[in-house]
């Protein structure tokens, strides 16, 4: 066993942090674009009364939930250009795969939240003579939001962990940076340990912030 010298990790810390920033950026983009925007659209499509809308959304969600992200990412990057002729950069492919993956997961959470509001609320709104838009805005959505936000916030840690998988496409994330630095310096233990500690620290922050936000949201509406 060789002596460990962590000064090399200190020296290359900026490179590792730059990679970590890519992971954080992907997490944020995945959560906002995938979880909130596309996830809500998919949930709405899934709850639609028209089969033409509902079925494609259902198939999309099941396909993206039951295949591994790694396969989705390489499929996006290598197979899609062959099918459509559109070539995307590794970062774009990785982001697209992540957004679709997160959207499929979150749409189920959002759908469950809307269904969790209960039929009686819909009926009561209708009995009061509220138009469709107002009954959604005033009655259904405020209640659904309370059910949906805590578990939605809880997915951010899974998204952060998933971004590490995207390093198989050549994007400059934490793992890419770590393997580049470790092959330059021949000190894998110091570099990978530092990378793992950095990732754990960010993951812990996300988890703690998520717990805090969940508790705050639950109390705020109780």
């Amino acid at each position, binding site marked *: 066993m060789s002596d460990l010298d962590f000064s090399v990790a200190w020296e290359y810390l900026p490179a590792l942090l730059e990679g970590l920033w890519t992971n954080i950026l992907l997490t944020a983009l995945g959560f906002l674009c995938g979880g909130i925007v596309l996830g809500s659209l998919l949930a709405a499509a899934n709850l639609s009364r028209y089969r033409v809308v509902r079925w494609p959304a259902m198939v999309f969600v099941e396909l993206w939930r039951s295949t591994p992200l790694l396969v989705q990412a390489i499929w996006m990057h290598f197979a899609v250009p062959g099918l459509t002729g559109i070539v995307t950069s590794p970062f774009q492919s990785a982001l697209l795969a992540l957004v679709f993956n997160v959207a499929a997961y979150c749409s189920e959470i959002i759908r469950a939240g809307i269904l969790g509001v209960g039929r009686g609320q819909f009926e009561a709104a209708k009995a009061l003579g509220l138009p469709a838009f107002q009954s959604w805005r005033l009655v259904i959505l405020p209640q659904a939001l309370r059910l949906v936000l805590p578990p939605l916030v809880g997915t951010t840690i899974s998204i952060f962990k998933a971004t590490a998988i995207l*390093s198989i496409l050549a994007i400059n994330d934490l793992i890419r940076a770590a393997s580049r630095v470790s092959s330059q310096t021949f000190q894998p233990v110091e570099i990978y340990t530092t990378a793992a500690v950095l990732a754990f620290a960010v993951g812990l922050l996300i988890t703690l912030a998520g717990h805090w936000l969940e508790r705050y949201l639950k109390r705020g509406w109780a």
Partner: protein
Amino acid sequence: MSFDLALLLRYWPRLLEGLWTTLAVAAVGLVVALIGGALVCAARRSPSRAFTYPAHAFIAFFRITPEVILIFWAYFCIPFLSGARVSGFWAGSLTLGLIGAAYLAEIFRAGIETVPKGQWEAARAMGLPRYPLWRCVVLPQALRFSIPPLVNYFTEFLKNTTLLAAVGVSELSLQAYLLGGQTFRYVEFLTAIALVYFAIIFPFSLLSRRLEVRHGQS
């Protein structure tokens, strides 16, 4: 753009080889996860802090740190630290097993804690000793509560086996990627394996949903 099925027919033995590796990784990882999960759960529920604190730390560490980094660490650092040679297969599947243990420990614990207090009290009132109390009263009920989340975690676990591609284990996804590079036809191979993964994972995901619904009703 045509979809060349002949290509798949020519190379299917290599894909099948990849599938076997994937299943072997899953089998090794699951055994480690089940045994490790039970042990960590026992430690987590222990009355002594000397056990609960390490169990807490183990669960938090393995649930929070991204899987790929742990696999890289095991693959590159253990040989360096110990001098032992570690193959990607063993480094990866044992790491996945430890990660699984952290998740299963929490699933088992939730299952045990769902058993109503009255059951414990009734068993004690009947004078059941510790071993029959666990074997005949608590565990059968706790396991039944644990099965839906277990099946659900199993689908996540199967997806995680692809991560071994990162350390060069030629499981299904890496085989397909390599074949794609070799033949310059990624579409066929990558679509084929996506469908294979779907065919394996989707039934389990349906099963876990059905089990959950049945539970919700009872």
